[in-house]
């Protein structure tokens, strides 16, 4: 098993005709993801790499039964595309695009809660479940191997940097989830750790967090309360970042005393979550919890 995506995932690609979407559709498929259809208004009836394209999500539903959708649509039209997926009844939606207006994301997240759908992202490289041969997004799959560590991260390249070290050390992953670098995202750490807690394939959880917001603290609180019993280790980026600067991720900003490294380290300490100071320490911490 794994979380969120697996060999049973029937993926729809919204915005499939764009360059990036075509390229990554091909890579996802080569990895093993079952892509059942694509959507692009006005391009219905055409094909991309042998994948049928439809005008609307509703048109896809009957014959193809997708149970997840990845949205490769421009930020400006993301809200419309997400709402279309909600209305068609799709319950797992991955929004890879960045620069989505914050109010749109809030509307999408609120609507998702209303209809019981799950949003991953926005501003995420996506997710990958190596043992299930399923990836949804653009994570470079060569750095991932099947195994028992569930990884959740706010940042793409940092995840590759750290996961490649795990893989080199022979430590595989159950599912790696890029939760997104924006200040408002669909599924924060606190929800991901609960999913990993309930996933039989996951033996330990690695959280790759950073300064800004309070997501890390909220997840740590669950660990402290005993709701997460699997071992959790963490890495935090931005220990030396100056306050009041958006450090690349809009979500990574220390402002008004919120989102400081001290607050996060305190929360992890209270929850007895070991935190790596540098990426080089992560492998050792993970090996320790498995020994």
């Amino acid at each position, binding site marked *: 098993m794994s979380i969120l995506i697996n060999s049973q995932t029937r993926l729809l690609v919204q915005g499939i005709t764009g360059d990036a979407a075509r390229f990554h559709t091909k890579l996802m498929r080569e990895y093993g993801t079952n892509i059942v259809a694509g959507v692009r208004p006005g391009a219905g009836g055409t094909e991309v790499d042998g994948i049928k394209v439809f005008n609307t999500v509703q048109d896809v539903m009957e014959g193809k039964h997708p149970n997840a959708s990845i949205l490769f649509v421009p930020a400006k039209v993301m809200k419309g595309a997400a709402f279309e997926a909600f209305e068609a009844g799709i319950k797992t939606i991955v929004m890879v695009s*960045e620069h989505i207006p914050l109010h749109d994301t809030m509307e999408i997240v609120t609507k998702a809660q209303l209809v019981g759908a799950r949003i991953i992202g926005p501003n995420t490289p996506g997710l990958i479940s190596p043992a299930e041969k399923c990836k949804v997004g653009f994570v470079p799959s060569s750095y991932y191997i099947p195994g028992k560590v569930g990884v959740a991260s706010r940042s793409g390249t*940092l995840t590759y940097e750290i996961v490649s070290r795990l893989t080199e050390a022979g430590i595989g992953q159950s599912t790696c989830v890029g939760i997104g670098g924006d200040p*408002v995202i669909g599924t924060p750490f606190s929800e991901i750790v609960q999913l990993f807690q309930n996933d039989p394939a996951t033996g330990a959880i690695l959280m790759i967090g950073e300064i800004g917001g309070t997501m890390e603290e909220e997840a740590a609180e669950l660990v402290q309360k005993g709701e997460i019993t699997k071992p959790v280790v963490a890495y935090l980026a*931005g220990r030396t970042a100056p306050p009041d600067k958006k450090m690349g991720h809009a979500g990574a900003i220390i402002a008004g005393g919120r989102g400081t490294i001290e607050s996060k380290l305190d929360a992890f300490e209270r929850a007895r979550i070991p935190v790596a100071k540098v990426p080089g320490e992560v492998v050792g911490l993970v090996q320790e919890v498995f020994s």
Partner: protein
Amino acid sequence: MNLREYQAKKIFADSGIPIPPGNVARTPEEVEQITSQLNTPVVLKPQLGVKKRGKLGVIKFANNPSEAATAAAELFNIIVKEEPIKIILVEAKVEIKQELYLAVTIDYSKRCPVLIISKRGGVDIEELAEKDPHQLLKLSINILEGITEKDIILIKKFAGDEIARFASVLYAIFRKYDAELVEINPVVITTENKIIAVDAVLNINDDSLFRHAEIAKLRKEFQDTDHIAEEARANNWTYIDLPGDIAILSSGAGLTMTILDLINFSGGSPANFIDTAQIDEDGIYQAFNLLVKAKSAKTMLINIFAGLNRCDSLAKGIQRYLKDFPVDIPIVIRMVGNKEKEGHEILRGIGIKPFSKLEEAVEKVVEISK
């Protein structure tokens, strides 16, 4: 994008929130003229990007036009945190009976708008929330529903009808302009029992500016000092200036922050960084150029983790840049990922020893910087 006070006030006033009579001036003469027209004691408020101007001592009071002109002449010579004072808002001074605080912002934890009202205004709201939470009313708003009748009743009970009306208007502004923060601190109840907005904050989400062309234009009214950051933003990259001497070119926010941490832990000090999205040969050429142009550093660290792009084409971009514009500072490059061997070969060909381990590259660049 943070609007200046006078720009925010114009939007507030147009939406039905009373503000003190006044106008903006760019010279002491204009300040004198406006004061004389207002025919009342005035307050001079420099229009700056920094917060907490009161604490910085740049808000001045004047009883008559000549006093105002003298105070303005001094203000126009001041540079506050690298920003010269160029515009002063001249407003009629108000007689304060009570100050309140009113804001609509985003609750990032609950992921919804939140309305905040405090019966004590003019103070630091974070401080107040900690010390005196009973003076605060915080209402989470469902963004699909907006402010409800129930919310309005609660606000009326807490702070009165007019404040409830202000709250509705503020929420409408928050939504209409895709704001991250709309704030009045303080809302003043005058000795004549008028309720007016004495300050105004309107911070608009940068990612929404494409649908607010009129707001994007307002940015030009005040000087944006950081042209490099502007140029980086145009490519959807991030440029941040820092006080040290090691320039950094990297990709991805989390990894870039990690590199800053590693440099600082090793006793080095970053000069600035560019965090690019996934780039190709031309992209790295441009990013390199921007970083060299930004400021002179002692040395530079380039980190490439080619997940889906290719080391060899990025190495070619670097090679081409160095051929076009020889750089006289030592450059340290860490390069891993697709076509790593080929990339390393190209770098060796131009006399750069590539690193595969991030930590080793950081150690090297810090050593050079010392």
